[in-house]
């Protein structure tokens, strides 16, 4: 058992990758059952991630060196430095990896019946496995160029998945092109900033850069590049133009995985600001920039969402506004990072709220997108003005939609309420105006989801939907698992906060623990 634990960080990358390469060969023999194979592989990856999480939250970070037995190289002159690609998983990394594992497993299960009548399914599953591999890689790597490679793999596979339905109409291709241009520019700017780091410090390892960091002029340019492009990839305003198109034109299961991929970029932003720079930069300025990005995203996201007629576009604008909550929480924590007393009283709980909101958002936004996919599967349309009266035919979908809408609006006892309450309380002590804006946005979110529920589910039975019945079993199963998780997190939030979220926040703040794990003797 301990040898599986020792190799687990490499296995959660290597197993989906091997399955992704085997899928075209295996689908020549049996094209129908390939979805079961993919679900099995992603299920094994989920079990490995849970096993690693149990170990890391008790014993501390895990390191994995690729291609060698030790993390450092000693030159004949006695100089010791880290070498090779090293994966370092601490509590924050395993938090994000858990979200990715659950979301990609449920996407594979949902796609068993949702994508059944499509052709070219072997390419769909190959791309889904590649997307899952690259998201895992982004979250657990300790080497900044390796992060860039996984970042590019994620953007290429997600663009190919967004344009998957372009044989039917032209809009998915247009959305895919917009997303590809945005991703490409972001990745090249990340590469530029990595070149700036390498040119100054001659190191590519995140821990090594963190320990050599002096805040020179070139580092300021690198910081501006990183903050701008990683916020652009997460869908923060004012760079949010790709989000509604990309999220609405992708197949429903892929939209759920895309939300998790955007959150992986958000994780990278937090990792770079907190671990590489830490207190060398001017924390109040950078914290306020992130807070302003967050407030803009919250407000503009929800006001653009109220006027939408397409159900998935509306949910995509809500995803932008919820990203604003995460940026607000962590931005408040950043702004008080240099002040130990304020950090102790409300900074840490603001960050806890923001990071807990990441996991809650992945769960309830995933559930909402899956219900929108279920509606599209049965009625063939995404337009709210054409739907109506579906509540008494699709019982399960209605219940899951109510759970998801209550969670996103912040109604107790669902999990949105738990994380939003933590954000309201701690941000109020920092600056009361921000907290009031957050509560206002929450009320507007509730209003827009009441509108969606009324148009899609209530009302008289329409003529063309007489033969509509409930969606197949695998889709109900995927939505049901998410609903159970939402209710469980809502009823017992302090178990999750104490065991999962608080170690993650402490791992982000504590830069010296991250660097000393690799550079122990150097």
């Amino acid at each position: 058992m301990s040898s599986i634990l020792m190799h687990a960080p490499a296995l959660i990358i290597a197993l989906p990758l091997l399955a992704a390469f085997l899928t075209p060969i295996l689908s020549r023999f049996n094209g129908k059952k390939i979805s079961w194979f993919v679900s099995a592989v992603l299920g094994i990856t989920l079990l490995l991630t849970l096993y690693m999480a149990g170990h890391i939250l008790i014993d501390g970070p895990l390191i994995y060196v690729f291609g060698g037995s030790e993390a450092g190289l000693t030159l004949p002159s006695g100089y010791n430095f880290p070498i090779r690609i090293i994966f370092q998983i601490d509590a924050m990394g395993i938090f994000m990896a858990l979200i990715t594992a659950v979301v990609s497993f449920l996407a594979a299960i949902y796609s068993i019946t949702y994508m059944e009548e499509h052709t070219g399914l072997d390419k769909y599953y190959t791309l889904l496995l590649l997307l899952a591999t690259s998201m895992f890689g982004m979250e657990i790597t300790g080497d900044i160029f390796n992060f860039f490679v996984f970042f590019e793999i994620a953007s290429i596979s997600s663009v190919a998945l967004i344009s998957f339905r372009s044989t039917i109409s032209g809009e998915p291709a247009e959305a895919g092109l917009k997303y590809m241009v945005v991703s490409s520019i972001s990745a090249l700017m990340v590469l530029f900033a990595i070149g700036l780091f390498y040119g100054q410090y001659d190191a590519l390892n995140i821990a090594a850069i963190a320990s050599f960091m002096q805040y020179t002029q070139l580092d300021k340019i690198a910081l501006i590049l990183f903050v701008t492009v990683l916020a652009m990839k997460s869908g923060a305003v004012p760079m949010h133009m790709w989000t509604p198109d990309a999220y609405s034109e992708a197949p429903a299961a892929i939209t759920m995985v895309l939300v998790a991929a955007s959150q992986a970029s958000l994780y990278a932003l937090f990792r770079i600001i907190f671990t590489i720079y830490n207190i060398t930069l001017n924390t109040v300025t950078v914290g306020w920039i992130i807070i302003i990005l967050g407030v803009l995203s919250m407000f503009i996201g929800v006001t653009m969402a109220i006027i939408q007629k397409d159900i998935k576009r509306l949910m995509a604008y809500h995803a932008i506004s919820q990203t604003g909550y995460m940026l607000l929480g962590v931005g408040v924590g950043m702004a008080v990072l240099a002040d130990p007393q304020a950090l102790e009283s409300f900074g840490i709980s603001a960050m806890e709220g923001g990071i807990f909101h990441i996991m809650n958002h992945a769960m309830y936004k995933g559930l909402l997108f899956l219900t929108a996919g279920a509606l599209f599967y049965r009625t063939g349309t995404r337009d709210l003005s054409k739907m109506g009266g579906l509540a008494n035919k699709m019982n399960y979908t209605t219940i899951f939609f109510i759970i998801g809408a209550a969670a996103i609006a912040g109604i107790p006892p669902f999990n949105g309420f738990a994380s939003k309450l933590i954000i309201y309380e701690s941000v109020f002590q920092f600056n009361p105006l921000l907290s009031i804006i957050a509560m206002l946005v929450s009320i507007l979110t509730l209003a827009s989801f009441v509108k969606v529920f009324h148009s899609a589910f209530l009302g008289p039975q329409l003529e063309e939907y007489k033969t509509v019945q409930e969606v197949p079993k695998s889709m109900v199963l995927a939505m049901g698992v998410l609903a159970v998780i939402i209710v469980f997190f809502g009823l017992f939030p302090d178990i999750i906060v104490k065991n999962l979220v608080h170690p993650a926040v402490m791992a982000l703040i504590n830069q010296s623990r991250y660097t000393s794990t690799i550079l122990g003797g150097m």
Partner: protein
Amino acid sequence: MIGNFPFVAVVIMLGLGIYSLMFKKNLIKIAIGLTLIESGANLFLIALGYRKGSVAPIYTMAPEGAKMALPTPQALCLTSIVIGVATTALVLSIIMIIYKKYGTLNTDEIRRLRG
């Protein structure tokens, strides 16, 4: 002063690439702009690894007194070129699909998704 010329070339290429990405209306010209930005970033990486008067790093354990150019940025640049090939292939395939469905390559007319 003349040793800074690669970096000036990087800035020129990035500027031309961003100009053609933002202000041109034809989709193929946007794809060319992406390729220009990528070439600029690769040139930047390679120019970082040069040391004055050095030799190519292709044998083990250089003799005393010889300087070798750094091999790591060359590996980074190679990875980036491979990724750029995949990106260009994907962008061009999507442009072909858009031409088939919309009938035009002008970005002013490819605006069915709005709002």
